[in-house]
């Protein structure tokens, strides 16, 4: 069987111990979205700030903050995710979501041309999670929450003021 070292890579533990982009953003203008894992009760609150939301996929993710509680996998995944998407366009963030979920062997993900080329960086460390199927939900929790937030950010009428 896969050993714990496949799961708990050093970089994961680092993000777990020192999570990046933890905190809150004013909402509005930020979008606040909640996600949770009914199995273990993990909760995540994600704040997403998008510039020029009306541009849709071309809008820019200008800030992300993460709140909530979770295990090392869900926390580190959220932390790495926040680093990876800040500064990207909404379209690029969506592509990264697809790429990451496909890395996690989530069924029904349709990769689009170019998705395969997206660099995962630190996120690559989460690959070991696939060998521990019950933990996959932990790893993707924040990503599903981000997807919700992006949908809301780019479809809602811009916050007045």
């Amino acid at each position: 069987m896969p050993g714990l070292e496949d799961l708990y890579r050093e970089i994961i533990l680092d993000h777990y111990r020192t999570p990046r982009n933890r905190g809150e953003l004013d909402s509005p203008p930020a979008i606040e979205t909640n996600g949770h894992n009914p199995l273990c009760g993990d909760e995540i609150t994600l704040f997403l700030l998008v510039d020029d939301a009306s541009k849709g996929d071309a809008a820019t993710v200008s800030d992300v903050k993460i709140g909530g509680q979770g295990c090392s996998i869900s926390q580190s995944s959220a932390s790495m995710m926040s680093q990876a998407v800040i500064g990207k366009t909404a379209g690029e963030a969506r592509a990264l979501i697809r790429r990451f979920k496909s890395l996690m062997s989530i069924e029904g993900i349709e990769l689009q041309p170019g998705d395969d080329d997206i660099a995962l960086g630190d996120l690559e460390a989460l690959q070991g999670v696939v060998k521990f199927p019950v933990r996959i939900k932990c790893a993707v929790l924040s990503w599903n929450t981000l997807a919700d937030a992006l949908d809301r950010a780019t479809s809602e009428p811009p916050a007045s003021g």
Partner: protein
Amino acid sequence: MSIDVATIRKEFPILDREIDGAPLVYLDSGNTSQKPRAVIDAMSTFLEQSYAPINRSSYRLAGEATDAYEGARTAVARLINAPSADEVVFTKNATESMNLIAQAWGRANLSAGDVVLLTEMEHHANIVPWQMLATERGVDIRYVPLTPDGQLDLTNLGQLLDGAKVFSFTAMSNVLGTIPPTAQLCRAAHDAGALAVVDACQYVPHNAADVQAWDADLVAFSSHKMCGPSGIGMLWGRAEILDAMPPFLGGGNMIDTVSLDGFTTAPVPAKFEAGTPPIAEAIGLHAAINFLEGIGLAEIRRHEMDLTRYALDALNDRFADDITIFGPDNVEIRGGVLSFTFRDLHPHDVSQVLDERNVCVRAGHHCAKPLMKTLGVVATTRASLYLYNDEADVDALVEGLAGATDIFGF
């Protein structure tokens, strides 16, 4: 008189299983229990030689199967000291039993403004069915709060029961292990004119239960937590109450007669057993009851008290402030369920590290999210003990937790 765990362990084939060379340390019996050979064999033998429909056909094979199924009912009645086997209804699990109560009894007896009293340590199975009814009927739900050490805080019980039509509570918490004073609570319910419903899912497998001594009205529990098969649960109720309740599920077996215009119901227990029941499961359950009674429920309880004491001490001694074990410390009023938080580690990570050593515990909210909130946590790690666990299992848990330190470097 303590039980002979080494001999008992031999009866459970799965405890011989090794994963990656390590033996199984099964500490998740509060979730579902393992099955002794006697249960597995009773089911196979029945399926190989005697399987037949029950209550419907009149050839000998069917008559024998019906007798065997009814024999299980008698065994259940004996186990909980019910006055009559006719008061025992087979359901699919304790959850169905609770829904049956909330829906059949509840719809017939509760209307807007009526009060249902629960406690803050209930399993979702004893919360959600009442919340569904509350939404439908405008019923109010109140909850008995907890003391800091995880007992029911009965200070204002009289007030909470004021106007209550039903008081439904667990006879043993699946998270805290807390065993409330069930007979006293039933009395309080009755004094207030409320029905006393007991979720005995965690109690019956581990204690000598006596529904008459409790003076309970309706009691729910599950086979799979007491060494019996999955797929079968029980509801016991006082005859007058069950008789007066409208049916729950409609279909074959629960009817007296049916025409295009309507139907009339069969007497209890058939009234609440619509469709083909869990036949082989009842046979397996009967074997489980015989098995438990052969060892003795009081002896099982004594063993679990000793082992719980051992576990509480071992964990607290070894980890001191690094571990917080919820629930009362006094094993006279707690069962073998140990929910805890460990350092800053998330229960999922704790469980993962323990699983590496084949130590099986549950990490999560244990179907008691409101209680998690009361405890101020999102989740806990829970080790739960049964008759086949011994000190070596507890030691493996302690060692496994110690090992978590290495990985997470706290």
